[in-house]
């Protein structure tokens, strides 16, 4: 059953927020790395270079500070460090969880590969995965920091399972580890955690496994902590209305890419968690104009009222040129603030949000 999003949403409203209406603005997580950081990642592998791990750590800190501030400059209500320290969404966590090993890259498509890990023994929790990066980012940020974590279903199904009788059992063990990590993040002050489960889009029939995993993840997590779930590039009709039963505060979707064709899916029955709606496309290099984004935001109002609507890009922006990623984020925030003002002024009919005022 859905958590209580209204219990944790207001804490993200900035004190100087200009409108009564408040559509929470956020990002999914990843952001283009500055070129020099990619160079630094390569340099540390070069045996002839004096650039070492400590230098790389400093470069990561610098990049995280930079992107966190870039998010703030764009006007976001909640920010992320752009995942500057992370290489790939499964690899990063598999390197931190005992029980995984790496054997080398495998093909995804064409000449695109990833270092798909193998689970070779029971997974266990050793050191915190993200607490240090959260501490760093929240210290440099003026705005609340959101923490994206790859979810246990994706961590399980996008690995080779050598150790567990079924991958479902592996997923539940991983969910317990994610729960431990979320508890530590909350102790460190985190109030906004997003679980990323792109693998659910490939096998939507497994929605019950994801539900059981989420139950474990949120066990003992206070309702002042906002728990989001991000699922992208799939047929949402195959997981809706089942997601209404998930113990989450917010469901984050990618719909701009499909021109909102799937919006009607969410209108019946009533959408229960808050909706985090993607309003800029993560895979087109054109910056959407503010007016176009405002029209996209109105699509979200067909599903939930303003007090349950969060606005974000479709997905992580890391594949875009950096100036395009920034332009999209900045226009997104501008569009949100204009829509809020129009709601305050009664210019948008919330019962028919696509209608002209």
């Amino acid at each position, binding site marked *: 059953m859905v958590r209580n999003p209204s219990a944790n949403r207001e804490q993200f409203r900035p004190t100087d927020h200009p409108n009564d209406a408040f559509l929470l603005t956020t990002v999914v997580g990843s952001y283009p790395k500055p070129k020099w950081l990619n160079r630094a990642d390569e340099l540390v592998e070069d045996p002839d270079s004096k650039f070492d791990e400590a230098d790389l750590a400093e470069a990561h800190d610098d990049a995280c500070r930079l992107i966190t501030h870039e998010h703030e400059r764009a006007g976001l209500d909640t920010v992320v460090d752009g995942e500057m320290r992370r290489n790939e969404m499964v690899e990063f966590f598999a390197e931190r969880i005992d029980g995984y090993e790496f054997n*080398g890259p*495998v*093909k*995804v498509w*064409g*000449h*695109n590969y990833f270092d798909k890990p*193998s689970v070779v023994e029971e997974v266990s929790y050793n050191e915190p995965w993200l607490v240090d990066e959260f501490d760093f980012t929240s210290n440099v940020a003026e705005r609340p920091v959101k923490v994206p974590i790859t979810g246990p279903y994706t961590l399980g199904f996008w690995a080779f399972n050598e150790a567990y009788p079924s991958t479902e059992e592996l997923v539940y063990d991983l969910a317990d580890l994610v729960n431990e990590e979320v508890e530590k993040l909350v102790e460190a002050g985190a109030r906004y955690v997003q679980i990323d489960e792109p693998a659910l889009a*490939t096998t939507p029939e497994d929605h019950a496994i994801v539900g059981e995993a989420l139950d474990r993840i949120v066990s003992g997590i206070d309702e002042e902590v906002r728990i989001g779930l991000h699922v992208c590039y799939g047929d949402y009709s195959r997981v809706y209305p089942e997601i209404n039963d998930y113990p989450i505060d917010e469901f984050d979707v990618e719909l701009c890419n499909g021109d909102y064709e799937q919006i009607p899916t969410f209108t019946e029955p009533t959408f229960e968690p808050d909706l985090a709606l993607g309003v800029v496309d993560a895979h087109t290099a054109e910056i959407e104009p503010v007016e176009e984004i405002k029209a996209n935001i109105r699509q979200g109002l067909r599903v939930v009222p303003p007090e349950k609507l969060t606005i974000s890009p479709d997905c992580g922006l890391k594949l875009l040129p950096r100036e395009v990623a920034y332009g999209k984020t900045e226009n997104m925030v501008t569009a949100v603030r204009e829509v809020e003002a129009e709601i305050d002024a009664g210019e948008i009919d919330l019962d028919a949000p696509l209608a002209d005022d």
Partner: protein
Amino acid sequence: MTERVAATPGIYPLPDWAKGTLSDLKGHQKGDLLSGDEGEEIAGTYDEVRAEFVDDQLEAGLDRVVEGQGRWDDMMAHPLTVHDGVETGGIVRYYDNNNFYRDPRVVDDLGFSGDVAGELESARALLAEAGSDGAPLAATLPGPYSLAALATDEHYGDDDEFQAGIAEFLAGEVEAFPAHETLFLLEPSLVTDPPADGTEERATGAIATVADATDADVVVQTFYGALDEKLYAHLVDEADADALGLDLVAGDREDTVYNVQEYGSTDSVALGLVDGQNTLVEEPETVAERVEWFEGQVPTADFGTTYLTPNTELFYLPENKYRAKLSALAAATEVLA
């Protein structure tokens, strides 16, 4: 006395060095993938890859050697995505995997291509060079049912004609192949997306069209689980296969055994025994036990040949594990000898 033959249906992972070299030469984007008219440098790299694949198999001690299909950027869809009568569309999901291929949109008649025959000529030359006795060439193609399922028809306009067009195209390719001992036709779609009730004969007829184009032994390799029983019966009777390939790793192997007990089998059989989608490497003894378990469950007195195979293609694996799987299969035939 059943002959045990260790073999694979190919589509191997590129060696790590070639992953890097080829992505540098070709690029990472959709438009950079193979169109079948690659230049000298890329072709030369694939020659090296092919030589390595042949060596891997000879070193492991397999009884059949495949070309390895390193060029097949689009996996089983390759024979279409390099075809002149086909345009490649968007990137689409490859079965229920986190893998993608270019959607082959068939926009013209599927005439003769010769792309795969060319690869096999090269593999055959490598085998001759190695002077290998007893490890003859095996050819690999997508089966016509699966290839039609992977493609989009924008030309034939009718399911029957499209299926027949694909089958005739594949048969024409097979006729141009150099001498080969075995032909693997990969047919996972028979499991994942079986023909509708009443259309089984169209699928089996298409397979027979391709199977009849060679004198080699034909293995129709099904995978990603067990076949529906009615379809299984059709395949045994109508596909003109010397062996049906049955997946004993994914899905319920009891269903597969039931099919064989109930409806009999082809004269020979191919067993998917090692998991092509998991890095856990099976012990040769375990593989041998699976063969004996299967043969013990079914009433057939003797299979002509039992092929010991991975259940799927092997490109899902990192290269160290792919080699280990080849060795496990070859070693299992020793255990059984």
